[in-house]
């Protein structure tokens, strides 16, 4: 019985943690921060930028895995190869307010641009 309850609690936790959870406090940072690409995550993964102004974002890839080598911004039709251990800057056009996700080819790495 205990095992079953634990399993149900685990399923509930998975659903909440991965699907339902919404960050309450805004952990985003502005675009001047270097985005580190390492160990399966973009750090920071939520980047705040201003609306209607062209911006630049810079990635520093320190992970050799194939997936991390390319970052895609599907909504903006941008894909950029990231050199290893070297900052790579991507110029963004002026964007309307909204959220623009970015990720690697297999979506192992995920992040979002928050345009305000």
């Amino acid at each position, binding site marked *: 019985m205990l095992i079953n309850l634990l399993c149900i609690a685990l399923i509930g936790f998975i659903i909440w943690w991965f699907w339902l959870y919404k960050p309450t406090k805004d952990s985003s940072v502005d675009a001047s921060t270097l985005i580190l690409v390492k160990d399966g995550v973009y750090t920071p993964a939520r980047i705040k930028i201003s609306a209607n102004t062209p911006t630049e974002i810079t990635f520093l890839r320190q992970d050799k895995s194939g997936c991390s080598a390319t970052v895609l911004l599907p909504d903006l039709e941008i894909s950029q190869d990231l050199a290893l251990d070297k900052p790579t800057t991507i110029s963004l056009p002026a964007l309307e307010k909204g959220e623009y996700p970015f990720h690697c080819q*297999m979506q*192992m790495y995920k992040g979002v641009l928050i345009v305000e």
Partner: protein
Amino acid sequence: MNQTKNSLMQLNILGAGCASCVGKIEKAINSVEGVDSAEMNFADRTVLVNGKASAELIIKAVESAGYNASQIKAESAEDVMNEKEQADLQHYKSLLRHTIIALSVGIPLMIYGLFIGEMTVSTLLEQVVWGLVGVVTLAIMLISGRHFYIGAWKSFLNHNANMDTLIALGTGTAWVYSMLIVAFPQLFPEMARHVYFEATAMIIGLINLGLALEVKARGKTSEAIKRLIGLQAKTARVIRDGKDLDIDIAHVLLNDHVKVRPGEKIPVDGVVIEGNSTIDESMLTGEPMPVEKVIGDDVVTGTLNKSGSIIFKATRVGKDTALARIISMVKRAQNSKPPIGRLADVIAAYFVPAIMIIATVSAMVWFNFGPEPSSVFAIVSATTVLIIACPCALGLATPMSVMVGVGKAAESGVLIRNGEALQTASKITAMVLDKTGTITEGKPQVTDIILVNTDSEEQVLALSAGIESHSEHPLAQAIVESANDRGIEAINTEHFNAISGKGVEAEVDGQILLFGNLKLMQDKNIDIGFNEAKAQVLAENAKTPMYLALAGQLLAIIAVSDPIKPDSIEAIARLKRSGIKVIMLTGDNKATAAAVAKKVGIDDFFAEVMPEDKANKVAELQQQNEVVGMTGDGINDAPALALADVGFAIGTGTDVAIESADITLMRGSLHGLADAIAISKATLRNIKQNLFGAFIYNVAGIPLAAGVLFPVFGILLNPVIAGAAMAFSSLTVVSNANRLRLFKAKEH
């Protein structure tokens, strides 16, 4: 760089704090033997050195003056590519190392379990021995599987889950369960005291192996872009102040005069100002025949100078050259996704947490309803489900094929803008072709002169060139050029008058000169007798006949025709064979249009279409539910190209508006069009195979791992087999995409 020749290099200077340092540094560099001049830019702390001296000597001189210097090397696309290859190679080696370490523990354990002894824990000795094995396995996990666990943990903190999560959970569960058995065997029924350390080690080894092979295979998918990047020459020989200088191409400036000898590559785009040669442009256009270049002709970066020495003026350098733009466009397109990949993306986004839930449910079902030892079955099934599921294969299915397909197309001189264009091109049902410049050469020529009341062709050409030199009609140019080519001087005409839709009239020595179509002759009461039949024969042969009359008498019929490109007929037949309806649009008259259409094997055509109506014709076809491709030269067809589902801009040579179309055909031949469609179809087929494979793998593998076959057949998958299957599923996808590299659009 050739040390015996003068060269230009740029150095970064560190430690130059005041403007007075400039003189000191320049002096130090100038004192080096072989330096012709040194000019320092204080604002950006760089110095430009001209001469034969080596960088090392110059840097030493700067250092001895009390500053530091480093050579600025422009980072070419090739350098970036090489760096990437190096990084990939290192990554491959480290993955192989991880594989060997993990398998060197996993394989002996597995052999022991299968053939030698039981992997169960009952006695204290077994507890100690398996405890030690557990510690060794933990070491393997930390050495060879470290990246999975760190990746999984960091993703978890970000409310994200990926392949790492599944591997970490699967191997982690097996290890923790085994360690619990080792530590507290009495808590478990005797039958359930089985340890799974071999599974953990084997899975880590196999997945590392799969990743290593994937790195190798991925490298091959970018071969096309590597080849394009390799076309770029590293240095250029420019003439400055009357001297030849070998310089890095990054330092070539606009309007520099660049010298290229036979066998050398064209280093930047330009226009020939001296000499003539033939240039092999096949690497960019796919056109096998070398192209003749004389003064005034354009030359393109990366093409190969074959026969003569030329000097050209640089018109586009650096990122603006056609080659650089092609490379960046191909790269962008290679990473864009066609709509077919979107479903896989949506699934991939929810995949991993869903697998975790399935694994938990599977464990619960086994625990509650499974045979004894139910806890073992529960753990094995949960581990196997976690390990066999492969989100990577789903994620890779589309991008890998697009990467190879777009690259393959670029090799045949076909530039595809993005994944969407690639997908739509594969579905085209109707292809609209503009006649002039697409099916035909776009260069009308005089083909026939039928003399009537004269016996002098010279007189006929002199008169017609005289009157047509006032006209702006495209056909007029053909007449004037024909006279020029034969060295015939045009006769002066006066009182020129263009009669819309009919032709032109003028006066020569007080006599009326008429030049135009049948209607003009009828209006002016010129007796043409049975010559109309001759003109009809010309029109039926795709030529445009025009009548020349002087002083009320017919002198000649001149036929002008725009020659059909030699391979248009074959290419159109290829399109039709692939089930595409081919339609021709032209502003020309019906008879000529009909004749051209017949000659090239097109059944449907629209003649006398004004340029602005071309888009309407495309829209009409779309209303009939056709997926319409439109092919034109990209200049006056722009609205139609934009409206079509896929717009193909056909370029002669490389002077094309790359940005204006969904797909750009670098060469003039319509075979490029047929190739583009063949490649897009092959790529889409490849994507579908990959997606099908990835879906089926997961859809079949996951229930199998959960044990659906057990109640009937008593089969439950071993987690090690699941690990091997998972490791090779994404490799299969990448390898299948690589098969596309071997695809050949029909030989021609």
